């Protein structure tokens, strides 16, 4: 009897959920024996890296799992709806509306892709309300505008009738949240709702979700790979790895006293502002100088009517030799353009780039032709996407040897092979793997290949453009370690471009902050992270999702602990 009572306390109860994917290679297990329960008003953080099965779990609650996903016996998803236990996996036809909207709503990662692009947002929200709440059009409209106001959209009446492309990224996610709330659900599933957003907007959206949750008393299943975000929002945390739950419990316990090594590894990737590297005693000589650099891209039209978009405006910058320089900025700040310009791969409209202490001096700029081969031996790029940056039709050996062969830097094939093997060892690529094609490797290994290719012609400067953004945190850590190693052993100067402040804090010696094509501030890591001078930098630093137990959470903690204890006792009484 007690067990039944306990179940009815939970809003959602997932028991022994196992999901297989039917693929060309046979059945692949995506979720293995997952059990999870959410109480009314509780925020559950579901944490894991890509492929850990967290999204498919959320989708199967809504019965939105794709056709090739097979939910295995004896999986059970029970939803407590108005005092009745509903078996979600047995719902058919119209009854599905119960989980799709009535009781559960979902927010997706990419708001742009989740709204119909050709229908005004108002119509989409009004329709939802008409179906689920039975409102008439005017009623729904008034309620919708009220919701827009509630999620913090300025001028809600005007925004309500706009199309999704007319809104900014943060605004879109707010509209998405408004739409999810429009049916007054008991449970809100948020699948990486802030991953595609810039940190400052991420902080705003998280604050909004916390606020709404306080006001509406809604339960939330919050899916993310970022433990910092989880620590800000969740009461309880479930950590998944390869389809299995490796650790679950109260947020503070999991985050501050992790038991499973995997959780610890995830935590290690978080920025630790108490342990920032010391600045070197003296500032080294600059390796390269950027003077009054501007970069413009043509946008619309052609010929005389062509409009130009200025990505970088008059930046002057010296990069100290032998250091890792972080270049931080939100999307659209021009950081990638600046990085590419240093490699001669962006249209420079004015200003120059000059390399000082290299074997041969290289200088180029507006109206000055680039000595491509000389530059290629001095500076190289490590790309963001480890998939598209390697030619899938060449072996790893050929990919790494490409600069040597293209510029004819070696005299014989043997010498090329020797150089390739040497650099492969340095980047921890097994020599036997050189015969393989890129399709044999995971993202992290591919990124090593990419780094090896950049290093093979012994450059002095490397630009790493968001080079770990596409990787999972635990693999990120390995690549970052490799970059540090290379800096120490080869004396490389690395410019690391990233939007992720935690990576910058872990890796860099010197940090430059960019905003809308302009350099806002630069300084040592300590200066930037601990004593930012400019208002924008301060805002940026403040929005880092650090690991913390907020006051609000600490207030809630005692009663949650009490609840947890109660359920443990209940289990013990049952002899479970």
């Amino acid at each position, binding site marked *: 009897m007690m067990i039944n009572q306990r179940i009815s306390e939970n809003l959602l109860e997932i028991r022994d959920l196992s999901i297989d994917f039917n693929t060309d290679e046979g059945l692949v297990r995506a979720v293995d024996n997952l059990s999870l329960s959410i109480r009314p008003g509780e925020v559950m953080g579901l944490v894991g890296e890509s492929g850990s099965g967290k999204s498919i779990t959320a989708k199967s609650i809504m019965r939105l799992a794709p056709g090739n996903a097979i939910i295995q016996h004896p999986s059970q998803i029970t939803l407590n709806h108005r005092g009745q236990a509903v078996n979600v996996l047995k719902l058919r036809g119209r009854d599905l509306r119960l989980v799709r909207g009535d009781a559960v709503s979902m927010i997706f990662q990419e708001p742009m892709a989740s709204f119909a692009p050709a229908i005004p947002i108002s119509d989409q929200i009004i329709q939802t309300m008409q179906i689920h709440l039975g409102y008439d059009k005017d009623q729904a409209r008034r309620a919708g505008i009220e919701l827009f106001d509630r999620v913090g959209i300025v001028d809600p009446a005007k925004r309500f009738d706009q199309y999704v492309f007319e809104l900014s990224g943060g605004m879109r996610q707010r509209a998405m949240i408004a739409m999810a709330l429009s049916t007054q659900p008991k449970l809100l599933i948020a699948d990486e709702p802030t991953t595609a957003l810039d940190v400052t907007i991420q902080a705003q959206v998280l604050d909004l979700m916390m606020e709404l949750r306080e006001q509406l008393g809604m339960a939330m299943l919050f899916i993310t790979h970022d433990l910092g975000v989880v620590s800000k929002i969740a009461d309880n945390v479930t950590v998944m790895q390869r389809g299995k739950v490796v650790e679950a419990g109260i947020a503070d316990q999991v985050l501050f006293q992790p038991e499973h090594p995997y959780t610890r590894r995830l935590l290690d990737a978080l920025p630790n502002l108490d342990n920032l590297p010391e600045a070197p005693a003296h500032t080294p000589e600059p390796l390269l100088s950027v003077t009054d650099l501007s970069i413009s891209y043509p946008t619309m039209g052609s010929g005389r009517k062509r409009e130009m978009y200025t990505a970088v405006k008059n930046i002057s910058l010296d990069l100290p030799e032998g250091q890792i320089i972080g270049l931080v900025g939100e999307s659209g700040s021009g950081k990638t353009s600046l990085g590419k310009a240093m490699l001669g791969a962006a249209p420079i409209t004015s200003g120059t780039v000059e390399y000082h202490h290299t074997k041969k001096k290289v200088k180029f700029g507006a109206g000055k032709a680039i000595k491509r081969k000389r530059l290629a031996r001095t500076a190289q*790029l490590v790309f963001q996407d480890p998939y598209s940056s390697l030619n899938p039709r060449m072996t790893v050996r050929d990919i790494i040897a490409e600069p040597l062969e293209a510029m004819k830097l070696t005299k014989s094939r043997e010498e090329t092979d020797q150089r390739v093997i040497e650099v492969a060892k340095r980047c921890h690529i097994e020599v036997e793997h050189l015969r393989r094609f890129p*399709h044999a490797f995971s993202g992290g290994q591919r990124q090593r290949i990419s780094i090896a290719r950049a290093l093979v012609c012994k450059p002095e400067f490397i630009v790493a453009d968001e080079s770990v953004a596409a990787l999972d945190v635990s693999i990120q850590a390995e690549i970052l370690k490799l970059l540090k190693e290379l800096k120490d052993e080869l004396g490389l100067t690395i410019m690391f471009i990233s939007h992720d402040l935690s990576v910058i804090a872990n890796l860099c010696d010197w940090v430059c902050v960019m905003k809308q094509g302009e350099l806002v501030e630069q300084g040592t890591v300590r200066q930037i992270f601990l004593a930012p001078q400019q208002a924008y930098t301060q805002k940026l630093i403040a929005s880092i999702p650090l690991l913390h137990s907020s006051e609000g959470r600490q207030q809630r903690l005692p009663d949650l602990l009490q609840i947890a204890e109660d359920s443990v006792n209940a289990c013990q009484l049952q002899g479970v």
Partner: protein
Amino acid sequence: MNALLARFGRKAKPAKNEESYYTAGQLALIKARFKRKTSGVVAAWILGTLVLMGFFAPFFSPADPTIGGADGEYRRGEPQVVFFWDDQGFSLRPFSYSYEKATSKIDLKALAGGGLDALDALTSSGALSSSSQNKFTVDKTQRRYLQFFVQGWEYSLIDLSVAGLDLDIRWDRHLFGVEQGQIHLMGTDEDGKDIFSRTLHAIWVTISIAIVALVVKLVVSLFVGGVSGYFGGRVDTIMMSITEAVRVIPPIPIYLACAVALSQIDLTPIQRYFAIAVVIGALDFATLGRRLRTHILTERNQDYVLAAQLCGSSTWRIIWRHLIPSFTSYIIVDTLINFPYVILAETSLSFLGLGLTEPVNSLGVLLQKAQDPDIQQNMVWQFFPVLVFVVLIMAFVFVGDALRDAADPYSEKK
């Protein structure tokens, strides 16, 4: 699955295969994935057999398909069935019977006498209707055994004597035949030409037209698509406008116009055959050209091309080492998928009587013949080329389909 394979004496893939997967190049990966699709493999075997039989048609044919090899004794004859046994017993060597033309019993004397009854008898006996002209009596006592590698009419097995090169390999052996007379597996037409042999010869004529047409098409579309895609901008706009203009012209009127133009010039059947192939190919570039352009446009913006540029590779090296390999598999697949359409184009031209005409053996010509009511009523065996045509097209479609699925081995690991 593994248990099933084990039962058939195959072991489950050992771990070593994993390494071979990792080091597999593009072709090996395509092959491996292609083999997984049974319908494609079966179709590939059928296709291979048909094309091979077409290419060595003279060897596989028991009779010369031209008028020179026509069997005067057996015009409009039905298929001669090959047996292994009959009432007189079993024979390891397959045999057929000898056929004798049934002479109609016309009472010439009575006719000459002017008796109306005799005339009545003649008309009602059916001797005058064409259906009675292919009446043959089978002499079941006289077996004609099938012989293998028989000597027959001389033909050139492989003819490479182009531009002064004398490489014409001639032979006179044929896979099978009979001792006396000829064997007609699929019957004969009104001239006594062997349908089976004609069909085999027609396969290669049709396929070679398709090959010529596809090569012309490929060259034109590579040029249009390549230039348009690589240079982009205004060049792209102009070339794509022209392409679109060509695309909207319906093909049949153009073929009609070309056929009229071709008939003005005095051409041998062979020359006409090439002219048709070139016309078909040249007018069909629009779709492939456009696709190649799109492909180059997207591929050009891939990171690995930028990576190659930053590695100091020259433009030529980028095109040759990075861009071209990226769409060779695509071109191969596209060409194979387009094969049936080109064959259909040739067939429809011949069918309309605009392409190749009667003495030449092409599937289109034979198909056109099959629409004759005389054949439909009295010589249904002349539908054999239709059957072969359908099988050939289906085989191409299935192989192309399976190959398309297999062709992008890099799509699965993303």
